[in-house]
């Protein structure tokens, strides 16, 4: 009964209620989008690497190593010896290794030298392996496999010839234009930095750094020159037994033959995310303040209506409604309004995301789920309702006081 009365009461004040509703919906849209995008960004961040137990590289900071080996950001400071990589590969507890050699670029996209283990063992998201959308893996020396973004941005097809430059700018210091790389395959979109990477073999990386004369020889006969790499930038390591992680990590850092460090990707990712966290928190604070101001708007609207509702309160009193019941009616009105704003904005965001899901994924590589009702968002909505009740206290107390002092025929 109180519910119907609250509903009719709100409907009788259509204009103010509608404006309050709009302000609530807008602020909820801001809050929910920020929260959803934050959660999605975190998820997308965390999906860049999966299943890897250790990342081994030259001694630097753990963030630095993580940034260049996983996110292809920044420059590697130190390499590790190729022998160290081979020794690591032979360790009893090591299940698989992926060598990575960085430092070159192709038209602004990073070039990554690796071997076939990359395509076999690399995992992203929920342990998803890489898959080719076209072509084949690295087979001959000058084969390249490119990420989906590279193919899309540069309009490459399987079979196209490309040039790989030394250095990582769009225009490298030296154009290795004598080395004719051929696109052998294009990877399916992953939503990770893999999409923006040009993959070649470790030997190819060696080859492009040869003198022009030697390079000519290699092009003529790939076996004429020894292309065994001298170093790699980093190694992704999968272990047979997770419990061995710390032992291996210690062994690597104490290796007498090479200076190396090993990091746990999960730990480094958490550290990196906590750096980004302050930006995230600023956004959340702004969204919360916007919402708070809307809730005050709701409270003001109800409070302002108390004057014109004096007669109504008198009627309720006459009919035997206690002050508490009248207070409760105001709460029901506030909650009803907030709840309908919540439902409306959730539906609106879901519809918008649903409509743009494919567009965002194909154009920007953003994988944003249209299902926004994650546990965190539901918790957040719960907090919104509690905040509504708290701000509705002002008009409710006003109604209570006015009901308490209300006499029947004095108006």
């Amino acid at each position: 009964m109180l519910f119907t009365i609250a509903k009719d009461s709100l409907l009788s004040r259509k204009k103010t209620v509608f404006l309050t509703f709009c302000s609530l919906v807008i602020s909820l849209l801001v809050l929910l989008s920020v929260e959803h995008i934050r959660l999605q960004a975190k998820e997308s961040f965390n999906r860049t690497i999966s299943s890897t137990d250790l990342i081994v590289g030259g001694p630097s900071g753990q963030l630095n190593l993580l940034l260049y080996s996983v996110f292809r950001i920044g420059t590697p400071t130190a390499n590790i010896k190729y022998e160290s990589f081979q020794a690591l590969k032979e360790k009893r507890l090591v299940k698989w290794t992926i060598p990575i050699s960085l430092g070159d670029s192709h038209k602004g996209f990073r070039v990554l030298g690796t071997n076939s283990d990359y395509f076999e063992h690399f995992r992203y998201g929920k342990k998803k392996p890489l898959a080719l959308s076209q072509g084949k893996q690295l087979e001959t020396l000058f084969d390249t496999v490119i990420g989906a973004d590279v193919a899309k941005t540069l309009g490459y097809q399987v079979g196209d010839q490309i040039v790989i430059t030394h250095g990582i700018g769009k225009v490298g210091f030296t154009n290795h234009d004598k080395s004719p790389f051929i696109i052998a395959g294009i990877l399916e979109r992953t939503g990770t930095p893999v999409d923006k990477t040009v993959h070649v073999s470790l030997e190819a990386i060696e080859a492009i750094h040869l003198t022009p004369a030697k390079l000519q020889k290699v092009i003529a006969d790939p076996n004429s020159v020894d292309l065994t790499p001298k170093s790699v930038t980093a190694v992704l390591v999968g272990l047979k037994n997770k419990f061995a992680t710390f032992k291996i990590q210690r062994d690597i850092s104490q290796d007498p033959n090479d200076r190396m460090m090993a990091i746990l990707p999960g730990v480094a990712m958490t550290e990196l995310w906590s750096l980004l966290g302050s930006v995230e928190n600023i956004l959340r604070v702004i969204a919360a303040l916007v919402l708070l101001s809307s809730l005050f708007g709701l409270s003001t609207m109800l409070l302002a209506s108390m004057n014109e509702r004096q007669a109504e309160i008198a009627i309720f009193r006459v009919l035997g409604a206690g002050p508490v019941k009248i207070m409760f009616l105001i709460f029901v009105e506030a909650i009803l309004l907030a709840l309908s704003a919540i439902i409306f904005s959730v539906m609106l965001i879901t519809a918008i995301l649903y409509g743009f899901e494919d567009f965002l994924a194909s154009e920007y590589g953003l994988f944003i789920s249209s299902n926004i009702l994650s546990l965190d968002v539901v918790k957040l909505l719960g907090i919104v309702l509690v905040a509504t009740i708290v701000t509705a206290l002002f008009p409710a107390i006003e109604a209570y006081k006015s009901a308490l002092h209300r006499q029947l025929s004095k108006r």
Partner: protein
Amino acid sequence: MSVAIELRNLKQHYSGKVDTELQFNDWQVQRGDKVFLHGDSGSGKSTLLNLISGVLTPTSGEIIILDEVTSALSNAKRDNFRAQHIGVVFQSLNLVPYLTVLKNIKLARYLAKQAQRNLVEQAKSLMNQLNLDEQVLDKKVSELSVGQQQRIAIVRALINQPEILLVDEPTSALDVSARDAFMSLLLNTCNENGTTLIFVSHDQHLKKYFETCVDMTDLLKKQEAS
């Protein structure tokens, strides 16, 4: 015949710029009586109605309604007692404007914590007694004429079959012919339902409808300055 309303040593104190105190003479109203309570504005009529209905609690003294000392009840119990036993009709603004007539009546039943069963039949039968078209039930209050609103207010006040009906200047917004029609309908309805009626007005013309007339000045003890 038993007593419907009884006042004993009733005093009501107001503190404000000027402290005033109203002292009431002891008074009894029998069940089924129809009393015309006459008094000018400011004579304490409203205070008395507020005290009887239990919206105000007296400073001292007792109010006994239907053998219950309502002045001694807790606020919540008194509100509930009012919902179940006392119907009130004002000069105007008796109904919640944004609700339909039916919802207004339902609200009274809901607040009296009684079952909604047979509500529509009972409302229709009261509406017949008051010469109201049944179709107004689904109309918004704001769509009705003042005369209709006042009669709906009576229906609403009587829907829980209260023993007592308090009416405060219900006809002041009505023209003379509507007033006469309203008065006879009101009295007939009270007779049919055996309701005790306290009718408050400053309009002496309405005296003719009542057997018992009480002047507010006779109810109050002579004021001694306090």
